[in-house]
């Protein structure tokens, strides 16, 4: 993979992040960080001083941008804006809930899995065929 020539294309887009400092640090080391001419970044570091409003505003901004393909959100942060995350239904940018250091991944809270689980819990496919 490292020896393959990296040929950029016109469909390339950014990966945005709303996560804790360590997670953001790691992804910036992997080359994901972007700062535009207006000094706007494609990430938001969430700490004890970050308000829910700031997280909501960042989420709305990243999901509205056309140059972002994926928004990575730590699951504990997604839980703070659960209503917003669950009501988001566009295919792009894709919202991926990731674990954080202090909060392991919980499939029960994942918005995509909750949507699919609802299908099987409320009415099974078999019962509809009767």
């Amino acid at each position, binding site marked *: 993979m490292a020896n393959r020539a990296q040929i950029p294309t016109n469909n390339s887009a950014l990966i945005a992040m709303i996560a804790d400092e360590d997670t953001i640090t790691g992804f910036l080391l992997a080359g994901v960080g972007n700062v535009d001419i207006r000094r706007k970044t494609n990430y938001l570091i969430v700490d004890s001083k970050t308000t829910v409003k700031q997280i909501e505003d960042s989420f709305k901004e990243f999901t509205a941008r056309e140059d972002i393909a994926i928004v990575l959100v730590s699951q504990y942060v997604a839980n703070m804006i659960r209503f917003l995350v669950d009501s988001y239904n566009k295919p792009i940018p894709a919202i991926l809930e990731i674990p954080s250091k202090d909060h392991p*991944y919980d499939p029960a809270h994942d918005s995509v899995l909750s949507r699919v689980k609802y299908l099987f819990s409320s009415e099974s496919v078999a019962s509809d065929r009767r």
Partner: protein
Amino acid sequence: MEDSKHQDVEIEEAQVESSCSEAQLLPKDETVLELLDSINNYLLLMDSLSSKLRDGWFELAGARQSMGSSRVSSALFDLKYHHAATLMEVDHGDADSNLKQPHFTLHKWLSTDNQEFSPEGGKFEEDELLQRKSSSPHSTEEHQEKRSENGPEVLSSPSSPYTPNSNIKKERAKSLSMFGTLVSPKLRDAQLSFETVLETLQEVANVRSSMLAAYEQVLKEIEISKI
């Protein structure tokens, strides 16, 4: 005798009817199985992602311990204008298809010097135009000459000074330079770990998109069966 023949015929007709109804059910079973398979793959990938992230955080903690916490902190993040070196290509799939299933491809360590690409929306081009307006005319001409000389072939040409390996090393070093010239080997390990995390995230995004497509298909079939 005639009654038993009549009964045999009835049994045969019932068997034919049930096999026809099974054939009608099969496509729905396939869709549901596809959905369940994608859910299973998604959960397995999330488990793998968690494990790789833990490795990355552990190495980062090791780097912080050897270099000092002030040398590996968000205060040192580069807030000057720069492009991301790692991007995600999105293929929106067949426009004619009812199931819109985008496909994601990761592009790591693209050269940030010669920005020939632009993401959707042309935001990078807009930023470059703004930057050119603010810079001097002389440096603008030099920049334009550089762009015309170094086309996209730079990344793949073996004779150019920017071979893929050297470009990747250069971009990796640029990323690490945020934390100083001499960095701990643990920080380099953390960088590699997070690169593999990104590769896993690409797979997660693709499985998620196929899971949502299968889910939409199942919902559609439920609606049709209700009619």
